[in-house]
Every structure is written in structure tokens, then in C-alpha cells.
């Protein structure tokens, strides 16, 4: 299992107002691994985007990176 916290952290920190409050942790599961992101309340909307547009795009990019390594990764905001 590769580490995707760097990729997710880079994207999220680049688009929020308070990058210092962004915390990214990897939670390994049996089949699927989760990348959990915690961030400042005011930035949640920006990361999710209208109709989930932004978070969907972020997930697709992470999925592509994971696909290369035959990993399954879910990005979740906690």
C-alpha cells in the first residue's frame, strides 16, 4: 500500500484558506484504504465544491494515482 497523504495534502492545502489546519491521515482497511482529511470548518465548503464537484475531482485524481499501484483509496472529510 502506497502513501497517498502527500498527494491529498498537497491538493487540499493548495486550495484552502487555512492550510495549517489541514490534517491528512491514512487509515488502512482490509480491502479499501481511507485517506481522512480534517480541516477548518470554513474550508469544508470550498473543498467539497458546488454539488460535490471539487471533492469528486480530487477523488478521481487520487483514484487514478492509486490505480497505477492497484490500490483502492477513498478520500473522506472527517
Amino acid at each position, binding site marked *: 500500500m502506497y502513501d497517498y497523504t*502527500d*498527494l491529498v495534502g*498537497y*491538493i487540499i492545502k*493548495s*486550495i484552502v484558506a487555512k492550510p495549517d489546519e489541514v490534517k491528512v491521515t491514512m487509515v488502512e482497511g482490509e480491502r479499501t484504504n481511507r485517506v481522512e482529511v480534517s480541516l477548518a470548518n470554513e474550508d469544508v465548503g470550498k473543498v467539497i465544491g458546488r454539488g460535490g464537484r471539487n471533492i469528486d*475531482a480530487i477523488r478521481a*485524481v487520487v483514484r*487514478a494515482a492509486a490505480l497505477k499501484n492497484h490500490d483502492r483509496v477513498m478520500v473522506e472529510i472527517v
Partner: protein
Amino acid sequence: MTSTSVEASGKTVDEAVEKALENLEEARENVEVEVLDEQPEEARVRVTLRDTYARKARQVVADLLLKMGILAQVYIRKADDPVMIDIGGENLGLLIGWRGETLRAFQTVVNLILNEGRSDRRRLVVDVEHYRNRREETVKEMALRLAERVRRTGERLVMDPMQAYERRIVHITLEKEPGVKTESHGEEPHRRVAILPDGVSATRTAVDRPPPASQPLTRQGAAYGDRGAYGDRGGYGDRPRYGDRPRFGDRPRFGEQRQPDPPGQPDSPGQPDSLGQPAEGAEPEGPEPQG
């Protein structure tokens, strides 16, 4: 991003700047010039690359690819209106995804990063190995081929759901084609283009008569055969993608009786369009398609 600068000298300031620009392979408007020394017959300048939007974009794309673990080259294809960034390399199908899905997401993320904290939002287009041009050609060819079939058979065809940009290509491509017209139906992301014989309205037949659920979607079946060069990207083999995809066997077989719409006739209630033959006029988008 650190900025690059080059020092150069010449007989005049202009000549020195020229030399520096040649060295940087850059246009005059993208650099700052600083005169270090100017004497008769001798001038020295320092030329510094301005941090243009295109350069920042290239950097963001390169950073993102690196963190994704994808090995590729990144170029600036077009520096403005809109800025276009090219990604080149091998095995980049992964980055394109099914019908460009992943590429679109990648572009969204790059735009998000670039526009953070900016009031003047600018659009950036990211392309992989000229995928966009190739896809555009595929869509055009498909549109023309289906239009030809519509003219020949007098039957309307409904294409696969497509992106707004791709639907636009179909509309524009067929705008000047004689004997056919195009309409879009359904809601995003399942909005589809219908190609129909000129003079027939798909909208009214659909409003009058929504298809029963069990009905085979004959016309669609024909369109589904044309999935273009990337038809295999679905990953589900022969399985229906949205649960309504007709199997190959649903298509009218050779010699089977069809009920063509008479092409070129004005719209009239008595027309054998689909009212008399529900199976032929099936409108897959549901009861209320929009133009």
C-alpha cells in the same frame, strides 16, 4: 517557483536583450529587463522571466503528476486565451480515464489550485497526448456517420450521453448537413443528442407517449454500436452501463421490417412518426425532454 534570469551583453541595450531572449527562448513580453551597465559600445543587462500564469500552471501540473507517481513531460502549448498545458509520455491512458473522465477531474483540480486566492479567474485547459483533438475527431466522424444513417433510413438516432462540449461538437458538425437536425434531451449527466430527419420533432412524440419500461430501445441500440475509438474503456464489457442499454440483439436484424419516417415532410399529427409504432419512436430520456 524560482524565477530564471540570464545576463547578457552587447553593443546596445537592445542587442543585449535580444541575446538574452534567444538564450531563454522567450518572448519580450514575458521578461523583465534590468540594465546593469550601459556605456558607448557596451551594455550589460539582466533578463528575468516573469512568473506568468502559464508557467505557474505548468509547475502545478508537474507537481501534481510527481505526487501522483506519474512520469510525464509537461509543456506549455498555448500561453494565453486559454492557457493550454500538454502532458506527454507513455501509458497515460490512466490519466485520461474513460472518455476523458479522469483528465477532466485532473483539470478541475489544477484550476482549483491555480485560482485559489485569485479574483481574476482564468480558465486552463490540460491535454494529454492530444486526446482532446482525437476525441473531437471521433465525435465528428460518429456524428456524420449517424447522420448518414438517419438520412438513409429516415429514423431518428439517439447518441450516448456526452459532455456539453462534445454535444456542442455534434450540433455544430451537423448544423449544415442537409436532411438532418439535432436536439439535446435529458438531464445532466445523461443528456444525449438525438439526430433526426429534418422536419420531424422528437419532442412532441416523446411528451405524448413515454415508453413502457419493458420496451426495447431500438434506436439507441444502433447508436450504442458507435462508441468510437475508446469504446472499450467502459470496463464492463457487454453489460449495460445505465441499466437501460439495449443488447446487440435488440437491434432490428437484416431484412426485418422497419417503419421509416418520411424524411423532409412537415410535422403533422397524422405522420407515422412514432405515435402508431411506440417501439419505433421510443424516447429514452423519459416523458419530458428538453430542446
